[in-house]
């Protein structure tokens, strides 16, 4: 179990045991510390830059922590051996690879909340209108 889930479980236990408000304050404080730590970790990810390559590492792209393209490098062999179309494709691939590296760092960090890898395979509802209807149904909202 992750530290955040531990702290959450601790708070839940304290609440169920009928503890005093002061005891709960400590448990809430621990949970807040964990969340703060998690937020700090997220800020650290966003403050770094990430690289991706293509064409046998002859093309290198660098993006910032939000995925914005900062820099591109085209190596001499790519320039010599690839035609314009091939070079364009390699540039696109390198940029996508850099952004993939960033999103992997994000996913790893999100996984630290549950202590388990994020499940990307189970299909989820993506239409916000349907999500809203589902939520109202869950709440039994007849308005």
């Amino acid at each position: 179990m992750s530290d955040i889930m531990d702290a959450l479980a601790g708070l839940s236990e304290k609440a169920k045991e009928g503890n005093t408000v002061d005891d709960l304050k400590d448990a809430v404080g621990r949970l807040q510390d964990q969340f703060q730590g998690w937020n700090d970790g997220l800020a650290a990810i966003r403050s770094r830059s990430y690289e991706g390559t293509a064409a046998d590492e002859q093309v290198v792209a660098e993006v910032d922590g939000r995925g914005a393209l900062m820099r591109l490098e085209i190596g001499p062999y790519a320039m010599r051996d690839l035609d314009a179309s091939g070079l364009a494709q390699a540039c696109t691939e390198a940029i996508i690879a850099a952004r993939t590296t960033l999103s992997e760092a994000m996913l790893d960090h999100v996984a630290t909340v549950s202590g388990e890898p994020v499940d990307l395979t189970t299909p989820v509802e993506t239409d916000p209108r349907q999500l809203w209807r589902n939520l109202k149904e869950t709440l039994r909202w007849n308005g």
Partner: protein
Amino acid sequence: MERIDLRALMDEVGHAIEEAAEHLEKTRNQEFVGTAADELVTARVGEHGLQVEIHILAKRRLERDELADAVVEAVREAERQAADTTFELSIERRAKSDTTDAFYREFSKAMAEMRSRVRM
């Protein structure tokens, strides 16, 4: 404590979601284009993601670091255009004009904070 009209609140949220989803559908198929090096380098951002295009003349005329810089410029321009097409929800416009309502005040603050955090 101010009374909250929960029904009105739920309706507002529902309308805002409909509005945002319709806008998303409209703009999903839009393509944004950035160019550099006298339009010899192009970046397209659209439904299929990012695609860089390099004209044969760009490869002939530019040094490799100039070409790389041109690609960065074109990509940044295309993505800047894509990011600039955010639109304002009707609820945001109402919240900005009605500063007496406590809910609208807090909503305006929250939306402004979220927009500044989400934008690249």
